[in-house]
């Protein structure tokens, strides 16, 4: 694989991990409103989703997609603005943490209802087809928990019927909050579901950047070339709580020590050292640069002030004259 692509992937993973670690620190320091939700352990998969997409594609990331968001074009500054409640962020302090996006740029902001973004991606893809656009794909991220929803079923079935270029990526991270996969589904492998929908399945090692980059590229290429929806299942372990309020005591030591518990960052670093002869000095430099970028971003965003509730346009409709005044 091309070295520059692997390095790019690793550096986005690193930036996302650094951003997460700093957000966790700010959360513990009481400087964040609401929750903080990390993507620890999912960076390899997430960055591979982002890198499989192009500018005119559609991406509906989920809770643990910090790396994928960066790879799709989000700036750390916009991520921080949303997480710290800056009025200058894309969500203008109206929504926070992982609920961020720029719909007009194909970057969809998630709602909390799992599986609900998939059909929104479908609609964007139907629209692109009606407008005569070509060679586009849409990726939607979900976890194992969302595969239990009706929204998942309806949307995957819809995409299959319409033969949409949807890449539906399941981070099978073993837990939905505290619920283990054994209480989430009873099939042997989530990928087995693909045949029931009439779509193609891909199974990836979600801890391995190489597997993720290759698998996601293959899936998005197939979708782009007219093969219809692709269901990607990536096995991994969430290396953090559901959010920073959750100590994840329910994750057993044996699971953490298993292959699934491998930290994708460490594995990617090892790959870069062995296959591309990247030295410790370079890793250290990249880590310093990532930390510097995030710290400068935090400093800037903390100086951007907070929203003024008394001069806020409290309008929920585009058509202002139809807004209620009760």
């Amino acid at each position: 694989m091309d070295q520059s692509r692997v390095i790019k992937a690793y550096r986005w993973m690193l930036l996302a991990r650094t951003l997460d670690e700093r957000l966790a620190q700010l959360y513990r320091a009481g400087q964040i409103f609401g929750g903080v939700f990390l993507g620890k352990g999912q960076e390899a998969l997430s960055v591979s989703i982002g890198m499989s997409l192009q500018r005119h594609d559609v991406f509906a990331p989920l809770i643990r997609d910090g790396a994928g968001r960066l790879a799709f074009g989000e700036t750390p500054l916009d991520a921080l603005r949303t997480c710290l409640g800056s009025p200058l962020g894309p969500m203008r302090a109206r929504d926070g943490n992982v609920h961020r996006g720029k719909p007009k740029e194909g970057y969809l902001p998630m709602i909390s209802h799992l599986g609900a973004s998939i059909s929104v991606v479908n609609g964007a893809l139907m629209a692109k087809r009606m407008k005569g656009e070509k060679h586009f794909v849409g990726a939607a991220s979900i976890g194992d928990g969302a595969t239990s929803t009706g929204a998942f079923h309806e949307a995957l079935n819809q995409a299959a019927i319409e033969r949409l270029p949807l890449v539906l990526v399941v981070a099978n991270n073993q837990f939905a909050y505290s619920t283990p996969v054994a209480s989430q589904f009873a099939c042997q492998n989530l990928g087995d579901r693909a045949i029931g929908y009439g779509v193609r399945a891909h199974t990836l090692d979600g801890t391995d950047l190489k597997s993720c980059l290759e698998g996601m590229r293959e899936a998005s290429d197939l979708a782009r070339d007219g093969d219809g929806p692709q269901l990607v299942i990536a096995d991994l372990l969430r290396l953090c709580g559901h959010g920073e309020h959750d100590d994840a005591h329910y994750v057993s030591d044996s699971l953490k020590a298993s292959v699934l518990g491998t930290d994708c960052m460490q594995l990617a670093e090892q790959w870069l050292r062995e296959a591309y002869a990247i030295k410790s000095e370079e890793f250290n430099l990249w880590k310093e640069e990532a930390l510097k970028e995030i710290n400068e971003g935090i400093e800037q965003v903390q100086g951007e002030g907070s929203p003024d509730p008394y001069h806020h346009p409290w309008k929920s409709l585009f058509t202002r004259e139809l807004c209620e005044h009760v």
Partner: protein
Amino acid sequence: MSVTYLEAIREAQAYLLEHDSRVYIYGQDVGAFGGAFKATKNLAQRFPERVIDAPISEDAMIGSAVGAAIEGMRPIIEIQFADFSTVGFNQVVNQAATLFWRTETPCPITLRLPSGGTSGGGPFHSQCLESIYAHFPGLVVCTPATVEDAYSMLIESVTLDDPVIFCEHKYLYFHLKAPNLPKDALPIGKARIARAGRDCTIVTYSAMLHECLEAAEELSGEGIELEVVDLRTVKPMDTDTIIASVARTGRLLCAAEGWPWGGVNAEVISRVVAEGFNLLDAPPQRINAKDTPIPYHPKLWSVHRPAAASIIAAARNLLRS
């Protein structure tokens, strides 16, 4: 030559498909079959790429409409019966209704909800859900009562850059006729005085308008003149027109086919009491469907929902107080 309420809806969609390439219709059986009520009859033949059959997946249908709207399209989603929209409720109230507030991205989708009771419809093919959608910020809720409004408000709904819940009443589909389609119309958000009167204001909308007008005709024979306000749009609600009417009559009766608790009637009364309490000569009253699921048998159904006879009784009571 005359046009029915249903034909007006079909003609409005034909007009929109013809004049705006961003418009498409997506719903169950809407394609070659022409829809469960034939509201899209022959449209798939004329616009094969833009009249699309959907699987029985209200959540995915509505979710996809949001995605298409983000991409600049103007989807019309036909929900086969308003009752079934609850399956896609999440996409309406959390996805469509919040999009503009959260992101400043408009969400121009129109959900057509064939609403309300017809004889024999029963609990799951008869519901009026306008109140529950009106509860959520970020939605416009239309309830046309006339052929003219069915046509002009549907066209305006699709033209708006906001999500619209378009509650079209099934009872009116075939019975209600007008000589022709309208040339001009009141805008969405404006109520209409459907009948002028001096003794009591009745605020109503959708199919109940016609029950109220029938009641008003009958009471007129006794020298009682009801003023009937057709809300047209339940959200936003044209409070000014309501208050102005109550200022003329001093009495308020609200008539709606939906259930009473937290409904449109309750909202109208709340506003009139809050903003026009001193205009009232008597406590305002409301008449709704009974607080039970909607019955199947026509005899039960005829008493379950308000009708001219029960509206007359309610108006008489109010005028005595």
